[in-house]
């Protein structure tokens, strides 16, 4: 951190001038949250250049991210109800004509600080710090090899995510958007000698390009329709002219949506996320579960004023979210790879968030992002600890009873805790956030989305089932495990109790962790750098429910998350749109509304008011799912296989099992419908290039001079006298010709 003080002062100097008079002076420090990850990224680059073979890059990254988190914490206390724009430095500022609206384009490196920004950055930097600490131990077998690269990419990711969330205009957001895509690509392809990892990285990048195209086009159209891409000016412009019926204005939300679906892995662009699990597990936890994939939710929440005027677009968001949640949950039920199940659960939970956005509860969606970030990071990190200790084993059929394996008790306990949160067990944080989304789905003004509330409840039951399918199989029951085939490159030093490849020969026999015959496999439990982040994240997951507990105890107490979201663009227009809906209190002024405003509303579900009904039905769905799981995967594990065989045996139900296990053949469908035609076109074009352009035109022109030369080749025999005779003969002919003309002229 040598360079930090100098750059610090420059940032302060930059931030000094344009700060609003009424803003708290602490906001001046906001630039640090962006700068520190960038500095650590640069320092990691230097470490790589200087071939550092220690854990220095990890220390740098953790320190920088911790600093960013501290900055955000400080800002959290200082941020007011009005958004503040902090200008770091001027970047693009063009004007033409008379320089009025539509005659200029400004995109400076600004930070747009409001409560939503800080809320998002809070868990991004907080989890980033903890996961970097976790990774410092998890990745230690790569020290001196990929360690620096890993932490450099993590730093770049946090920098880009900061740009995305804190940027003051859509160009900054776009830069961050592409930056996180790049970091994601680099980290998925971290094990670049593995063909699957390389393929997964490319898949993620290319699928994201499709979404990014939508975002870029939306950005162009926003400038075209509103004359600015800066948030502060944009909200004013939208307020002045909310709903233009021109197709350009109408297309904006649809294009933004496409971008969000790509980044946040929704139908039809979700296919990259399960494959992204090829990356190291901390990356899966940080980027592909907790933070980056929520960028799409952030985008729609931030741009909500553009969505609220377009009910069709909102309904589409809701439907895509609901259907994605359902599809991913059904796939997750039939997978056997623990990380893959969590990946599908991530897609499914992101589906909930989009459902929430679509039914107009930006608060519910943001709250679910918040709770999900903690428990999903926890689940991934515990999965990573298991994978780290059992030589890469992730198959839930080959791991059992880890709760009783020494060294894994804490990890197992926390994983089971995470399972309760993912299943949205009553009175966990996720229960409240999911509740908020489903209530809004049932009470939405738009009748078309009400059925999504029922789909959401079904998905809640499925989620509870597949979550505890992992939980009961892996962490409960008799102790039984097989190590995987991965050795983290530990061949040089055996201090972790890893057995070498040749020693892991006892195949399916149940190896007990206790007995110490030489050559047996000993799972090695995680040390403090993995345990501490796990515990802290678990505490975070529990505390994420705190705002709801307080609201539950005291109905007048506004939900903290709601106050965060309500004072931002995510609520602009919500007030106008839903005067008769349950959010009218919320958007009225600084204090967000009470949750029980729902009761005023006429929507009834099964004869109860929506809030009570969803609470009860959600609890019921969750508990039913857990009980089914308890029977099939703990009490009578044979029954699960028997059920599968029965379903496979009948032709009428066979498709359920095969479809779910083969991920409904979506990848194959894309292969046939998109990749195959593209490949065919590419092959045809390549053939045209080779045959017509290369062989025909280029080589044909090249052959012409040679052919011409071949005509004259016999003249050059190499004998000097030969040339001399030719020359003398030629001269004689010319002379004879001249004489002949002369003689003729003389006559």
């Amino acid at each position, binding site marked *: 951190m040598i360079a930090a003080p100098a750059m610090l002062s420059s940032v302060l100097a930059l931030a000094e001038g344009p700060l609003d008079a009424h803003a708290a002076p602490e906001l001046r420090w906001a630039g640090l949250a962006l700068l520190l990850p960038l500095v650590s990224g640069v320092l990691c680059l230097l470490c790589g250049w200087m071939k550092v073979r220690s854990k220095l890059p990890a220390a740098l990254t953790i320190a920088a991210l911790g600093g960013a988190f501290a900055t955000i914490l400080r800002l959290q206390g200082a941020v007011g109800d009005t958004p503040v724009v902090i200008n770091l430095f001027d970047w693009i500022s063009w004007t033409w004509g008379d320089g009025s609206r539509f005659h200029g384009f400004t995109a400076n490196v600004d930070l747009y600080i409001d409560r939503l920004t800080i809320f998002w950055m809070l868990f991004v930097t907080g989890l980033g710090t903890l996961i970097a600490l976790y990774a410092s131990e998890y990745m230690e077998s790569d020290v001196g090899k990929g360690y620096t690269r890993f932490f450099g990419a993590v730093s770049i990711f946090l920098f880009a995510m900061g740009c995305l969330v804190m940027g003051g205009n859509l160009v900054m957001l776009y830069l961050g958007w592409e930056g996180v895509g790049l970091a994601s690509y680099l980290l998925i392809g971290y094990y670049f000698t593995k063909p699957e990892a390389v393929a997964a990285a490319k898949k993620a990048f290319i699928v994201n390009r499709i979404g990014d195209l939508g975002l870029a086009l939306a950005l162009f159209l926003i400038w075209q329709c509103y004359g600015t891409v800066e948030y502060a000016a944009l909200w004013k412009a939208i307020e002045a002219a909310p709903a233009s019926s021109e197709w350009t204005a109408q297309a904006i939300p649809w294009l933004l949506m496409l971008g969000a679906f790509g980044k946040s892995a929704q139908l039809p662009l979700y296919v990259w996320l399960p494959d992204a699990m090829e990356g190291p597990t901390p990356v899966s936890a940080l980027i592909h579960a907790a933070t980056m994939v929520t960028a799409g939710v952030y985008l729609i929440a931030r741009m909500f004023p553009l969505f609220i005027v377009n009910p069709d677009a909102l309904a589409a968001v809701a439907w895509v979210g609901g259907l994605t949640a359902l599809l991913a949950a059904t796939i997750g039920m039939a997978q056997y790879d623990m990380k893959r199940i969590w990946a599908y659960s991530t897609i499914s939970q992101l589906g909930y968030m989009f459902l929430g956005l679509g039914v107009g509860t930006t608060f519910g969606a943001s709250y679910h992002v918040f709770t999900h970030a903690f428990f999903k990071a926890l689940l991934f990190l515990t999965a990573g600890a298991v994978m780290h200790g059992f030589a890469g084993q992730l198959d839930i059929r080959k791991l059992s009873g880890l709760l009783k394996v020494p060294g894994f008790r804490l990890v197992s306990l926390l994983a089971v805790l995470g399972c309760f949160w993912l299943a949205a067990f009553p009175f966990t944080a996720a229960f409240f956030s999911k509740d908020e989304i489903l209530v809004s789905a049932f009470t939405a003004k738009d009748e078309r989305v009400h059925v999504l509330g029922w789909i959401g409840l079904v998905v809640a039951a499925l989620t509870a089932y597949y979550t505890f399918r992992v939980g009961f199989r892996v962490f409960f029951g008799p102790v039984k495990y097989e190590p995987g085939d991965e050795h983290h490159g530990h061949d040089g030093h055996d201090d972790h109790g890893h057995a070498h490849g040749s020693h892991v020969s006892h195949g399916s026999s149940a190896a007990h962790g206790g007995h110490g015959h030489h050559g047996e496999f000993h799972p090695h439990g995680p040390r403090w750098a993995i345990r501490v982040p796990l515990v802290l994240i678990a505490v975070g997951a529990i505390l994420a429910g705190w705002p709801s507990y307080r609201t539950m105890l005291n109905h007048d107490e506004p939900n903290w998350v709601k106050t965060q979201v309500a004072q931002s663009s995510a609520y602009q227009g919500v007030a106008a749109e839903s005067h008769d809906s349950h959010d009218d209190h919320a958007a009225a002024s600084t204090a967000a509304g009470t949750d029980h405003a729902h009761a005023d509303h006429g929507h009834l579900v099964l004869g109860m008011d929506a809030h009570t009904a969803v609470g009860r039905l959600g609890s019921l769905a969750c508990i039913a799912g857990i009980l089914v799981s308890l029977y099939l995967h703990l009490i009578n594990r044979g029954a699960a296989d028997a059920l599968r065989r029965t379903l496979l045996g009948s032709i009428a139900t066979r498709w359920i099992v095969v479809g779910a296990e083969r991920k409904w053949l979506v990848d194959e469908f894309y292969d046939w419908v998109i990749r195959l035609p593209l490949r065919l076109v590419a092959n045809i074009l390549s053939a045209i290039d080779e045959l017509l352009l290369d062989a025909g035109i280029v080589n044909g022109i090249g052959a012409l001079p040679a052919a011409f030369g071949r005509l004259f*080749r*016999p003249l*050059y*025999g*190499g*004998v*000097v*006298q030969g040339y*001399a*005779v030719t020359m*003398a003969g030629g001269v004689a002919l010319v002379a004879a010709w001249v004489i002949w003309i002369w003689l003729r002229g003389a006559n």
Partner: protein
Amino acid sequence: MNPIDPQLPPGDPLVMLGLLASAILFAVGIVGFLSRRNMITMFLCTELMFQGAGLAMISYGRQHMDLSGQVFVIFILTVAAAEAALALGLVVLLYRRKETLSAEAWKELAES
């Protein structure tokens, strides 16, 4: 015909003799160049052709009562002397490479 140009009448015996000699010199040179393979001999033959051409110039100069022809030849003789030194040097170098003076030894650039 330029009226200022004083010219001898056609058929002046000295001019005719000079032209005849130059023709003979040139013919001998060309025949020698074509029929011999020895590089020094070939070089001498080119010198013969040179002198034939020079003699023709002197003869025509005489015909036109003009000194330009003779001036030209003096220039040519000077240049030819320098060129002779160069050419003989080349011949010596070529000889050192292949231990022969035959021109047929050198046909690397031939297009077979």
